């Protein structure tokens, strides 16, 4: 067999490995009910429940923010985020949380908010906050 053919096979193998690794580490969009079933991290889409209690008191704990979110199926859960309350949180129209269920609470490591843009009325703006600084 020619060397280029061998190398070609290696390249194909690496490409397949890449696709498999992406597929296996890709996550899913789920509801709270589905999140309850697994212990792995996943994304839950919903919107925050306006009338419900929202806790952030920096003088007590600068790293504790809790609120209630309704997922797309209408199920409501308490969400806990280890970090500060994101700016303009109340104005958000949609939230995408990344995290997992712990008991009946959802512990989010990342919150992605879609807010009506302050700068252009007809557009939506997306902001993301993470509990942890990105690390490798």
């Amino acid at each position, binding site marked *: 067999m*020619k*060397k*280029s053919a061998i*190398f070609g096979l290696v*390249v194909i193998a*690496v*490409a397949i490995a*890449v*696709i498999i*690794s*992406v597929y296996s*580490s*890709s*996550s*899913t*969009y789920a509801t709270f009910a589905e999140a309850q079933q697994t212990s*792995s*991290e*996943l*994304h839950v*889409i919903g919107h925050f429940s306006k009338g419900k209690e929202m806790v*952030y008191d*920096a*003088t*007590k*704990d*600068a*790293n*504790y923010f809790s609120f209630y979110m309704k997922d797309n199926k209408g199920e409501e859960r308490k969400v*806990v985020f*280890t*970090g*500060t*309350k994101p*700016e*303009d949180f109340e104005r958000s129209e*949609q939230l*995408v949380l*990344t995290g997992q269920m*712990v*008991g009946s*609470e959802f*512990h989010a*490591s990342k919150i*992605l908010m879609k807010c009506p843009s*302050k*700068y*252009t*009325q*007809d*557009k*939506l703006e*997306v902001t*993301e906050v993470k*509990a*942890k*600084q*990105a*690390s*490798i």
Partner: protein
Amino acid sequence: MNTVFKGEHLLPGQIGQFFIVLSFGAALLSFISYYFATTDDAGKADSSWQRLGRLGFYVNSVAIVGMGTCLFYVLYNHYFEYHYAWAYTSRSLPVYYLVSGFWNGQEGGFLLWAFWQGVLGNILIVKAKSWERPVMTVVALSQVLLATMVLGIDIFGKRIGSSPFLLLRNSGIEAPIFSQPNYLDFIKDGQGMNPSLQNYWMVIHPPTLFLGFASIIVPFAYAVAGLWQKRYKEWVQPAISYALFGSMILGTGVIMGSFWAYESLNFGGFWAWDPVENGSIFPWLTIVAALHVLIVYKNSGHSYFTATFLVLISFVLVWYTSFLSRSGILGESSVHAFTDLGMFWQLVIGILIFLALSIFVLVWRWKELPITKKDEETYSREFWMFVGAVFLGLSCFHLIVVTSVPVWNAMFGTKIAPPADAVKHYNVIQASFAFVITLLTGFTQFLKYKKTDITRFFITTGVYFVFAILVTVLVVYLTGVYRLNFVFNLMMCGSVYSVIANGKVLADAFRGKFKLAGAAVAHIGFGLLLVGSIIAAGTSKIVSENASGVVNVQGFDAKAGNARENIMIYKNTPVKMGDYTVTYLGDSISSPYHFYRVNYKKVDATGKVVEEFVLKPKVQASRDAGMASSPDTKHYLFNDLYTHVTAIPSEGFAMQGEAGHDEGNDDKNYDEPVAHEVAIGDTIRYRDGFMIVKSLNKQATVQNIPLTANDVAIGANIEVHGRDGKVYNAEPVFMIRGGNVFDFARKVDDAGLKLRFSRINPENKKVEITVYQQPQNKRPWIVMRAISFPYINFFWSGTIIMVIGFLLSIQRRNKELKTV
């Protein structure tokens, strides 16, 4: 109904719109003329088609400049009847940010791209000689497509492109005021620019990046022209020079963006693997790969197809990147993508046209391509350069597969979410590729083209490799990288090896083989850049992790518990944080910024202050009470200390600093007052410390109240000792005037106190001091996060070194170009 609107300045918009249509028409004319100049006038020295093509291109360039001038005129004069001016700028915006307002919107971005492409086209007209006709056909085609993006004209009921001269009342925003002729009287100011974009880096980063994107057209055009004109071998040489230029500028533009993010955004780092960031490096990876195989082909005749393919795909990826960031498809996976301006399909067509063109020329000329049948030597430079280029391509392939998850979802109707910990996923896989690639940039230096002496190669490679391992072990132990995933240690080893091996080449270059200096310097820069990125990102330390004053919340699992990165500090209450003692000193406003002064002090064992500095992270309040926080960073040679404010009291800005001038309400900010009857010299205790009544001042004065002979004003000199050992003096005043009793309270804001001299008891010669104390949480505070980034300067300096390397290489290739 035809309303005549008052106060509108329609002329600049009409001229601008005219220039847009002109630029489109001229580009189309140029494209068609150059096409016929290439086909019909082939071989003719004097071609009227070519003259027409040039004319079209010149007119196109002038029209683009005209368009830009009109747009800037609109922005500069604050004509808010234009959507672009209204949406992205405001009256208070300084002129230099009006420049960045120019490319704040998508239309401006396209304009910038078209502008640079026009500049490059004009250079090609002068320099390309025999290549001008076919190359300019391709460039003009790209100009035509870019012009359609800003056309903003309805054709067959479908809007083509989005014009920057769109009027606000036509922009689709519904408001009753637009039915009034004088609606402009109600629009006093624009929406203003997003605070995070008001940064000097935003003035130069987009033009650099777009010049990078635009310059990829040149090698692409040469490749298409080469295949079209059957000049299969000749196009490679000029393409190398332009590919070098493109890689250099695009790389610089990307890193500038990263520097902007690091200096003024608050995600706490210099790279976040955001889809838009990834998109900007797709074409960089492929053009750098292309560059290497082009050189391989030039020197050995191998890898022709790979080289051509990579050049062609790079430009297709430029369009794909534009599509990703501008079509709105990234939706919820990116924080800084644009929303759809209704150009989704137009962008898709853009990609497809260039993809189809690339496939077409390859298939059309497939049988004639100079592809070698024989295998490369295993121990030859060309073989391993080829391998390296393929791995760069694979690394790009991985980025595309993950970044395009929303695209796959749209195409196949699936609902896959990006990896939950995307950053880790990218880091691990890309580090593996980086390991292979850096290793190759190292040992390939010891190989020669065609054939190499094997024994000697193994000895030199081995010696340098062992040396690199030793250095790596030292570096990973000193910096703490060894604690990370093993793959990052491998990447470190590869990068160190690359720096050392190329260092040897550079040393040789100084001894005469100066030709090789460019590549060696660029490789060293790249290696240092990677070394810096591993250490800075991998061992960055959260400094603000001290838990004092933090109430532990029950039910928190250990994993989430590690993430407490924010720290709340009260004004003037020092907190120990890592090596530093940190004090929040206060805030000040310099519109539109709100600065928070944070004092850092390093104290050695004997209590001596070794180092002291003040950082001023700022928060920018925008009109709608939103907040954008920007960090302030203390730069050391080997370390950066990065600080930004993550939360402020919800009472917002008013509460900070000047607490309550309103006397009536003021007492609400304090706990129940406590009255103390004391004699001179007595001590009063309060929660955070104590105070001593030093003396009484019978000549006390009160500002703005002149005293007459009958009035009595007595001040009580009180020395307050705060918690941190600080001493403050206050003099509350007791006054009898015209038979009435007044008293003037004094505040010690830093200690959270208000003191009243409320009564004099002449019988026992005692006085009454009433102490108002602020409850803890009423005292001004901030929540901040501090991160230390070790050795980040390797990352920046690596970039600069890489650019120098590219410059040297361009110089060398241009010399070769002249001699051929």
